[in-house]
């Protein structure tokens, strides 16, 4: 594998904690955009994040972030920000002092550090609480100050371990908007979350992990289409679902068709989505059925996760 200077590259990476497997034989390239790591507890999400930030060293293999080896913190952390899941902070510091002090450790001059601190506090909406001790912050505020610390030095790669944890719905949507804004600025964002429908909302790509292995990666749609043992579900909202059902049942790739409860749509299970869409076009033209919408019903992280990992996952 060549070094991708714009990506995060895992080359046959394994990590063992003694005899316990963290992750195994990970071959992965993460391009710019928002990538979500999805998997149950213990699947290796945090291990993968700790490996790409140099907090852990791989037992085998090689990791490079924007071409920088992860054992060179003095180079890596100018470009990478990491919001860990650890809910702990240095004692007796205010939110402002916390950000400012560590920006100084980055080597920033005082004026630069002050400006970056205020900018980060503004981005996470914590300017009012800047002079309060972090010890007095609520869970949501602590989550936001961690996020501020990760983005304060304006990194190219942002790694966020459960960034939506502990946030109320209002702040959650603000943080999601911030993540979109950061991704729009051309940054890599790698995040893990148990809140699958929110992963769905923000992610360009997913990496699904199970028991230390990467079981799938790519865009949700492409991952879904690779899961051939589970027919793809398509919901067709139309005026005559029973007519549509009778016409599509003749096809061998259609496994099941079910009229939805309000009788204004048909849920089709098919083994070949492309052939189904072609067929649907023909039927609509031939029979004059009025179609309101056609949408995949299980091309989301929740469904993909369930098919691949075999459990509901966290959906809090």
């Amino acid at each position, binding site marked *: 594998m060549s*070094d991708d*200077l*714009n990506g995060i590259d895992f080359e046959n990476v394994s990590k063992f*904690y003694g005899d316990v497997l*963290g992750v195994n034989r990970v071959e992965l390239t993460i391009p710019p955009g928002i990538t979500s790591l999805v998997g149950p*507890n*213990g*699947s*290796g*999400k*945090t*291990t993968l994040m*700790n490996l790409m*930030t*140099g*907090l*852990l*060293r791989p037992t085998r293999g090689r990791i*490079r*972030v*924007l*071409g*920088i*080896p992860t*054992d*060179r*913190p*003095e*180079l*890596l*952390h*100018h*470009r*990478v*920000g*990491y919001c*860990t*899941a*650890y809910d*702990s*902070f*240095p*004692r*007796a510091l205010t939110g402002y002092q916390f950000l400012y*002090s*560590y920006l*100084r*450790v*980055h*080597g920033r001059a005082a004026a630069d550090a002050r400006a970056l601190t205020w900018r980060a506090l503004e981005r996470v909406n914590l300017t009012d609480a800047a002079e309060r001790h972090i010890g007095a912050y609520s869970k949501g505020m602590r989550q936001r100050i961690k996020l501020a*610390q990760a983005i304060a030095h304006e990194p*190219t790669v942002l790694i966020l371990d459960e960034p939506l944890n502990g946030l109320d719905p209002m702040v959650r949507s603000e943080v999601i908007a911030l993540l979109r804004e950061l991704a729009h600025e*051309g940054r890599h964002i790698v995040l893990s979350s148990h809140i699958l429908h929110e992963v769905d909302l923000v992610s360009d790509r997913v990496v699904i992990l199970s028991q230390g292995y990467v079981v799938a990666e790519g865009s949700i749609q492409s991952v879904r289409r690779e899961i051939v043992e589970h027919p793809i579900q398509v919901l067709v909202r139309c005026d005559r679902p029973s007519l549509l059902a009778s016409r599509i049942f003749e096809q061998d790739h259609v496994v099941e068709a079910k009229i939805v409860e309000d009788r204004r749509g048909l849920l089709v299970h098919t083994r070949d989505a492309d052939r189904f869409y072609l067929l649907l076009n023909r039927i609509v033209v031939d029979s004059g059925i009025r179609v309101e919408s056609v949408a995949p019903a299980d091309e989301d992280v929740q469904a993909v996760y369930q098919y691949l990992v075999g459990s509901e996952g966290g959906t809090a």
Partner: protein
Amino acid sequence: MSTGAGAAPTPPQWGLWSQQALAVLRIELRKVFWGKRSFALYLLCLGPLLLLAGRAFVLWRGWVREDPAAAAVFYANIYQSFVLRFVLFFGCAWIFTNLFRGEILDRTLHFYFLSPIRREVLVVAKFCSGLIAAVTFFGATTAATLVLLYAPYGASTAVERVLGGSGIGTSVAYLGVTALGCLGYGAVFLATGLLVRNPMIPAVAILGWESINFLLPPLLKKLSVIYYLVSLCPIPISQGPIALMADPTPAWISVPGLLALTLGVLLVARWRIRDAEISYGTD
């Protein structure tokens, strides 16, 4: 988007490193001097001060008489057996093992590891912060106890004995031994904090070794910090009837020896910290 420099070695950046080291110093010194955990350090330093203040009170009330020459011998005993072997030992154990181990327990070390600072710079900056704190705490304690030692004899005698004539030499020697003690014990406890998961066990072992130093044969005596510190003290004290005697090591060996020990430990710490991982959470 600029590219990373890859694995190519980077030239020394002394300006950046010193700036980063100063930033670490500021964070660490704030923790040591103002942190809640430091209460124990203040209490520790209060011990010899209370002892000397009590003695001063007794002399001032005239309940006991003691001339300044005897006071110097009294102080030599207190300094070597209490200040050096107890206050400075435990104080340094507290300060220096907490530099890394304390942060691991608090789950805050990752903030440094996620900063673009060379791990070697971090080790040196943390060690320097510990050294500054220890020298401030125990240097101030030593100076204050010297003042309290001679205070009952009046201001002019106290000034003469602490700052004038031969007194200044003795005071500087005690302060110098205190600083070297901070350096020596600091290096030892920095290493235990980095190398051992529970630094209490090696701390107790080191305390035992340092305590039986007077019983050890001359060669083994030299494998301790206290031996060199005692050798440098201005007034020798009796080690007791069962002590095995050894010639004191001259200052030109003791001082570079302790500096070499510190350098050696920092090199070990550098090797240890480069490969250090943070894994205080689970997936």
